[in-house]
C-alpha cells in the first residue's frame, strides 16, 4: 500500500515538475545581481535592473526613443522644458500606482544623490521636476541638452521604484526596503554565490512574459558557462562576446539544431586611442601611418575568429548621425612607409626608424589578464615593426589601465566606445572631460579647443539638421587627425537550447529581452 502511495506521489511530482521546468528560463551571470536598487551602481547588475525597472522612454535600434512609461511628451522651444504624459493604469508590483507623484519622488531621490551621477550630463543638467497633473510631470533643465531622452532611457539611474519601497525619508542612496518596480519581472529570491530567481510580474501592463520564472545562475567562468549550456544547466547565453570563449561559440553554432546561435548588429567599437600629446604619436604622420599599417582583416579573422566585423571608423555606420561619408584610412603598408619617409623618419640598421636621434618607439598599454587584448596588441606590434615602429607592450591590471586612460600615461591604449544609447552624443560629450582617454588622446591636437566647442554646440543644438552637421564636423576632424585606431565593431552573441523560442537582440547590450522569450512547443523541443 505504502509502495503504491509513494508511486502515486512520484507520478504526481513528475507531472508538476515537468511543466514547471518548461516554464522556467535559466540564464547565467558572473555574479549575483545585487540588491537591485534602480538608482545605484555596483553591485547592481544593469541587465537585472533593466528587467525590474522601466524608463519613461525606451531606446530603439534606429537611435530614436519610443514611448514607454511616458506615452507622450512635448519639448519647449528653448529645449529646456520637457512635459511628459504618463501611461495610465500602470502599477508597481506591490500594487501602488505609477503616477506623477511616484515619478517626482524618484527624481527627488536620484537628485538628492547627485554627486554619484556626476558622470552623466543629464544628472547635472536637471534643474527641477514638478508634478503638473495626476499623470503629468515637467522636467526643467538648466540648459538645453540634446541627448536628454536617450539618457532617460538608460538602465540607471532614471528608472522608477515604488515610493513605498524606498528607504528612510524617501531616499534610495542608502538602500531600499524592497526591489519593487513596474517591469515584467520581480526579484523573488537571491542565494549568494548560487543564483537569483525572478518571477513574472502578474500585473505587468505590457503583457505576461513567456516564462513564469527566470533563474540566473552565478557562473563566473566563461568556459564553465559554455559547458553549462551544453549539459543543460542553463538554457541561454546572451551578452557581450566574452560571455563564452569565441571558439566555444563557433563550436556550439556548428551544432545546430542542438543549439541556435546568433550575432547582433555592431553595438560598440573596439578602438585604440593614440596619444597626440606624447612623442612620437604627437606627429600626425606617425598616427596616420599606424592607421594604414594594420592588416585588420587578418587580425579580425584570426584573433577574433571572424565573429566581429572590421572597423574603419570610430562609430559603426548604424550609429545615429555618425555615417558622414568619410573615406577609411585603409590598409596599405607601402603608403604607411611613404608617410613616415616623408615625415623624415629614417630606418636604422635594426629596422627601427628614428628622427633627430630619437627612435620611433611607442608604448601600447593593455589589460594584462585580457587574452584578446593581448593577442591584438601582439599583432599590432608585429605589423608596426614592419614599417619601422618599435612597439613596447605594457600589460597591467584593469584599474591600472583605467588610471592611465584618465591621466594620459599612454602611447596607444585600448578603449571601447560606450555603445547605444550613448552614441554618439553622450560619448562625444565625455571627450571634453580630462578624465577620459579620449580627451587625453586629443589633447595634443591644435584644434582641440574647437572640437570641444563644436561638441558643446552639438549637445545644445535643438535642430536635428544642425546637430547632424556639427556631429559630422567633429567626426571628420577626429578621423583626419587619426587619433583613433578602430579595430572591430563589438557585437553581442546569443546561444540557446531548442527549448527556448523568441530569442532576439535588444537595442542595447544591457537590456535583455527576457519577457519576449517563451518556451518552444514541446514537439519542437524534442
Amino acid at each position: 500500500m505504502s509502495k503504491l502511495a509513494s508511486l502515486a506521489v512520484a507520478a504526481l511530482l513528475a507531472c508538476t515538475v515537468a511543466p514547471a521546468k518548461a516554464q522556467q528560463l535559466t540564464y547565467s551571470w558572473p555574479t549575483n545581481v545585487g540588491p537591485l536598487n534602480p538608482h545605484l551602481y555596483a553591485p547592481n547588475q544593469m541587465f537585472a535592473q533593466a528587467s525590474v525597472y522601466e524608463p519613461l522612454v525606451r531606446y530603439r535600434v534606429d537611435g530614436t526613443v519610443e514611448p514607454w512609461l511616458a506615452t507622450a511628451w512635448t519639448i519647449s522651444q528653448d529645449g529646456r522644458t520637457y512635459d511628459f504624459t504618463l501611461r495610465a493604469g500602470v502599477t508597481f508590483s506591490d500594487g501602488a500606482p505609477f503616477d506623477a507623484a511616484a515619478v517626482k519622488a524618484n527624481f527627488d531621490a536620484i537628485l538628492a544623490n547627485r554627486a554619484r551621477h556626476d558622470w552623466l550630463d543629464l544628472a547635472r543638467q536637471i534643474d527641477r521636476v514638478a508634478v503638473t497633473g495626476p499623470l503629468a510631470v515637467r522636467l526643467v533643465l538648466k540648459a538645453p541638452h540634446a541627448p536628454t531622452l536617450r539618457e532617460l532611457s538608460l538602465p540607471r539611474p532614471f528608472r522608477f521604484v515604488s515610493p513605498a519601497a524606498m528607504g528612510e525619508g524617501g531616499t534610495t542612496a542608502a538602500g531600499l526596503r524592497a526591489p519593487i518596480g513596474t517591469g515584467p519581472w520581480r526579484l523573488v529570491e537571491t542565494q549568494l554565490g548560487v543564483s537569483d530567481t525572478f518571477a513574472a510580474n502578474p500585473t505587468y501592463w505590457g503583457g505576461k512574459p513567456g516564462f513564469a520564472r527566470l533563474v540566473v545562475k552565478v557562473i563566473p567562468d566563461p568556459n564553465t558557462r559554455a559547458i553549462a549550456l551544453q549539459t543543460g544547466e542553463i538554457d541561454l547565453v546572451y551578452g557581450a562576446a566574452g560571455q563564452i570563449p569565441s571558439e566555444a561559440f563557433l563550436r556550439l553554432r556548428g551544432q545546430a539544431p542542438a543549439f541556435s546561435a546568433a550575432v547582433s548588429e555592431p553595438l560598440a567599437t573596439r578602438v585604440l586611442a593614440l596619444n597626440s600629446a606624447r612623442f612620437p604619436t604627437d606627429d600626425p604622420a606617425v598616427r596616420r601611418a599606424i592607421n594604414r599599417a594594420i592588416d585588420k582583416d587578418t587580425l579580425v579573422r584570426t584573433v577574433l575568429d571572424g565573429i566581429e566585423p572590421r572597423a574603419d571608423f570610430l562609430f559603426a555606420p548604424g550609429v545615429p548621425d555618425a555615417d558622414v561619408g568619410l573615406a577609411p584610412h585603409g590598409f596599405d603598408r607601402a603608403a604607411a612607409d611613404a608617410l613616415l619617409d616623408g615625415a623624415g623618419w629614417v630606418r636604422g640598421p635594426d629596422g627601427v626608424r628614428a628622427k633627430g636621434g630619437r627612435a620611433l618607439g611607442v608604448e601600447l598599454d593593455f589589460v594584462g589578464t585580457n587574452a584578446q587584448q593581448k593577442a591584438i596588441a601582439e599583432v599590432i606590434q608585429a605589423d608596426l615593426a614592419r614599417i619601422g615602429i618599435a612597439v613596447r607592450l605594457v600589460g597591467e591590471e584593469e584599474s591600472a589601465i583605467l588610471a592611465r586612460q584618465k591621466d594620459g600615461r599612454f602611447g596607444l591604449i585600448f578603449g571601447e566606445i560606450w555603445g547605444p544609447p550613448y552614441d554618439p552624443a553622450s560619448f562625444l560629450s565625455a571627450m571634453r572631460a580630462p578624465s577620459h582617454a579620449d580627451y587625453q588622446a586629443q589633447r595634443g591636437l591644435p584644434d582641440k579647443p574647437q572640437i570641444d566647442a563644436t561638441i558643446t554646440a552639438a549637445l545644445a543644438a535643438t535642430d536635428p539638421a544642425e546637430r547632424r552637421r556639427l556631429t559630422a564636423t567633429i567626426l571628420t576632424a577626429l578621423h583626419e587627425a587619426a587619433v583613433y585606431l578602430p579595430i572591430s565593431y563589438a557585437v553581442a552573441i546569443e546561444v540557446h537550447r531548442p527549448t527556448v523560442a523568441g530569442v532576439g537582440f535588444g537595442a542595447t547590450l544591457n537590456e535583455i529581452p527576457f519577457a519576449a522569450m517563451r518556451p518552444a512547443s514541446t514537439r519542437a523541443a524534442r
Partner: protein
Amino acid sequence: MLRFALARLALIPVMLLGVSLLVFVVLRLGPGDPALDYLRLSQVPPTDAALADARAMLGLDRSFAVQYLDWLWRALHGDFGLSYATRRPVLPDLLGYLPATLELAGTALVVSLALSLPLGAWAAGHRGGWQDRLVRAVAVLGVSLPNFWVAFLLVVAFSVTLGWLPAMGRGTLAHLVMPALAIGLMSLSVNARLLRAGMLEAGSGRHVLYARLRGLSERAVTRRHVFRNALVPVVTATGMHVGELLGGALVVETIFSWPGVGRYAVSAIYDRDYPVIQCFTLVMTVVFVLCNLAVDLAYAWLDPRIRLGQDSA
C-alpha cells in the same frame, strides 16, 4: 598536551593583530586605487567628482591611522565593514561562504587520504612490480598536472561526454566528486609516494627484524611497526597540504561555480576589495593555526617519542 594546545590557542589573538596590521599596510602599499575599481565595477567613467564621491563612500578619504584604528575598533566588536564590491557586511557573507569551501577541501582531504594510503601500501608491498610502477606514474602525473586543468579534463570526460556527473554547482554528493578529486589529486600523489618510501624504509629497520624474530605475524609487523612509523611523514605532509587544498579550492571553485569563499576572495583581490581581503586573511589565519595544531597533536599520538609541551617544564 592540553597545556601545549591551550598555549597555542592563546597565541591566536596576538597573531591576528599582527596579521591584520601587516595586511592593512601591504594592501595599501600596492599600486592602484579601490575607488577606481569600484567605478570600473559600476561601469561609470572615472571623472574626478565620481572618484572623490567613491572615495568618500568607501571611507578612503581618511588618513591611514584613522582607517586602521576605526577598522580595528569595529572588528573587535565583530563588524568587519562592508565589502566595496557587494556593499554587504563582510563577515556574515564570508562565514556564509566558508562551509562550502571547508566541505570541498575536507572532502578532498578525505579522498586524498583514503586513496593514497592503500595505494602507497600497495606499491610498497609490490616493490619494483607493475603495481609499484603504476602508482609511481600516477603520482608523477598527479603532482605535475595543474588542478584547474585536471578539473576541465574531468568535466569534459564525466559531464560533457559521459553525462554521469553534474558539471557545476553544489548540492548532492555527485556535485562533490570532480572538484574534490581535482583539488585532492596533488596531495594524494605526494602522500602515496611518501607512504611507499616510508614503508620501505621502516621495513628495513632493526625493530622490524626483531619483531619478526619475536615471531609476530607478518600482518602485525606491517601494521604496527612498518605502517605506523611510515605514517609520520605523511601526517607532516598532510598538515602542509591543508593550505594546498584550500588554495586549490580557491581556484577550482570558479570552474565548478562552487559557492565557496574562494570566489569571494579571488574577486576581492582582483577588485581591491580591502575589507573582504582583510577579513578573509584573518579567518584563514585561524583555520591554518587550528589545522597545524591538529597535525602536531596527531604527531604526538603517532610517535611516543614526541612529548609536546614537556620541554618547557
